[in-house]
């Protein structure tokens, strides 16, 4: 058995242990403990695997990049897990199943990140989205959660159908479902070019659904609002990270930039996601919907990375640089987003901007953390988000993607408005002094906030340590 499978196996055994535990005793603490131990072990194992030699099998590929991404994924899931116990206590449900589904969706993400074959990618995607349906509709009595669950179930089924159709057409051309087979230019062109383009667009449609990029973004705000908070955090980070990695791998391995139409589609989707995401966020009062719209815009920015891989005029070193930018941006955005969600979990009753007003004067530490995170999302200097955006702009300049670059700059300025609105709301003079009394700051939350500030500001001021690490991986 390949060593690289161990982290996934540990997560799987964690889930199965919780299942066995459920047969004998229902104890939330035990489930929390088991899931934590398995995540920690998987994380340590992944760290250890960082220096292992890469290996490729039929279904999976393991190299420095995939293990770094798996590490990132496990770290994010671990940060979300740290908040899980206190949050679940407030729910009026059985709590142990949540840990089980949580671990299973993590496993789905891990599978997708390392997949090298359409079948393993699809199975991972389905494992993740089926678990997500359970996680979203976990509070089944809540009307909004039910609606969100049904929406996600149907839309993810449609997205999967699109992906399957695309994969089937590609299979017709290449005779193999392996991602590496996409590289071979077969001598006998069985299908006309438009059929392959169709297949690629089918696959894009499915993946854009999961990434909530613009033509397929309508579900995301309802879902973030309706789903339980931790589930929204998972949806925004885990699901999008693993789907984006698959998208990136497909585009690079298949060399899909050779088709002009695909480049056009990608740039149109990127530009419209930036604008529409940010414009929808402008006057939004609900915090979760605001984050949902900002995530549309951020993945629009990230699509620029796919446009950069232009094989006509580039050397190998530039390809590495693009990969570094993508990884840096993903690290920056996902850590910031996890921070934002963990703040939201600490203030569970506050749903809108009005309710947030004056938090700074009552709970200054939470408010300061949230402010810094918003600044990082907006891309203000000295934060991690700024460095990520800076690298992205630098790369876009070097490849002379002026149109997309202009869209990025303008939509960032539009986006600044609503991030600053959150900060304005935070420092408003409070009307009612007692309204934040229900927020209790315990040591756990405090230490997590300190960790988040350390990550966002520390890497923002000294980005070289992170970028050198990423350079080492891609080099």
């Amino acid at each position, binding site marked *: 058995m390949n060593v690289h499978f161990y982290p996934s196996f540990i997560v799987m055994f964690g889930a199965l242990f919780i299942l066995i535990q459920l047969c004998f005793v229902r104890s939330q603490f035990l489930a929390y403990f088991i899931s934590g131990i398995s995540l920690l072990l998987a994380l340590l194992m992944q760290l250890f695997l960082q220096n292992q030699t890469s290996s490729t099998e039929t279904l*999976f590929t393991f190299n420095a990049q995939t293990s770094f991404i798996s590490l990132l994924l496990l770290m994010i899931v671990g940060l979300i897990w740290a908040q899980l116990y206190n949050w679940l206590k407030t729910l009026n449900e059985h709590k142990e199943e949540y840990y089980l*589904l949580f671990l299973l969706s993590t496993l789905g993400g891990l599978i997708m990140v390392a997949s090298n074959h359409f079948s393993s990618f699809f199975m991972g995607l389905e494992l993740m989205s*089926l678990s997500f349906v*359970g996680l979203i509709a976990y509070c*089944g009595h809540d009307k909004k959660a039910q609606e969100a*669950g049904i929406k996600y179930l149907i839309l993810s089924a449609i997205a999967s159908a699109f992906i399957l159709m695309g994969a089937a057409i590609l299979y017709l051309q290449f005779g193999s479902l392996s991602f590496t087979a996409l590289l071979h230019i077969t001598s006998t062109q069985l299908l006309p070019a438009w059929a392959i383009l169709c297949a690629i667009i089918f696959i894009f449609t499915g993946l854009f659904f999961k990434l909530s990029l613009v033509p397929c973004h309508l579900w995301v705000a309802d879902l973030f609002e309706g789903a339980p908070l931790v589930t929204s955090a998972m949806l925004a980070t885990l699901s999008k990270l693993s789907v984006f990695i698959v998208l990136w791998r497909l585009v690079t391995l298949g060399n899909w930039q050779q088709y002009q139409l695909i480049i056009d589609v990608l740039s149109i989707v990127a530009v419209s996601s930036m604008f529409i995401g940010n414009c929808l966020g402008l006057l939004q009062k609900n915090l979760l919907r605001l984050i949902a719209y900002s995530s549309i815009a951020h993945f629009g920015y990230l699509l620029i990375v796919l446009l950069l891989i232009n094989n006509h005029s580039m050397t190998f070193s530039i390809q590495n640089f693009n990969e570094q930018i993508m990884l840096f941006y993903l690290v920056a955005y996902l850590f910031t987003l996890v921070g934002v969600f963990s703040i939201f979990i600490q203030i569970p009753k506050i749903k809108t901007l009005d309710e947030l007003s004056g938090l700074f004067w009552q709970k200054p530490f939470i408010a300061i953390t949230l402010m810094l995170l918003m600044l990082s999302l907006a891309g203000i200097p000295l934060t991690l988000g700024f460095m990520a955006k800076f690298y992205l702009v630098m790369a876009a300049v070097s490849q002379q993607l002026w149109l997309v670059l202009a869209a990025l700059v303008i939509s960032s300025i539009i986006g600044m408005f609503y991030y600053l609105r959150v900060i304005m709301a935070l420092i408003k003079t409070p009307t009612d002094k007692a309204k934040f009394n229900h927020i209790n700051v315990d040591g756990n939350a405090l230490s997590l906030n300190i960790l988040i500030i350390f990550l966002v500001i520390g890497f923002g001021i000294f980005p070289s340590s992170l970028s050198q690490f990423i350079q080492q991986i891609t080099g």
Partner: protein
Amino acid sequence: MLETIFIMTATITLISALLAITAHNVVHALLYLVVTMLAISLIFFILGSSFAAALQIIVYAGAIMVLFIFVTMMLHQGEKSLAQERHLFHFSTSITAFVLCSILFCELAFILFLAPSETLNDISIAQLAPAITVKQIGQQLYGPYSLLVVISALMLLSALITAIHISKNAASIEIKTEESNL
């Protein structure tokens, strides 16, 4: 010859799938769905993968019918619903499904008995060359693709837990509301 049969089968698949979506009555929709499955299995037969075709019939047509029976058993509410069902059943509503099914049957009979020998030879040369046996499928599934079996097992597990959790939830809430009503 084979192409004509394929086109007819594909048309039947599409029409019955469309009808399954548009039918108002659940029972009718399910019947159309069964026709779709049968047509798809005939396509598999034409492609030469008899195992997939058999699975299609056993799993889909069979499982869907079983599910259908379960659902009707659960929703069965005595005389009133029986009368309603009797009212719903007309030969005229089932005629489309019947016609589509009979076309499929005729095609199958044609392939089996009436097809001229040269077309059958064509089939054997063009289609049946790498006939995939059950053994080969099993070897693949427990060889290089063994992890897929594990993943699909986990997928079913998560779907099962989700279904149980949500349905249990609804049941307990109902009991609670009944208690509050009392």
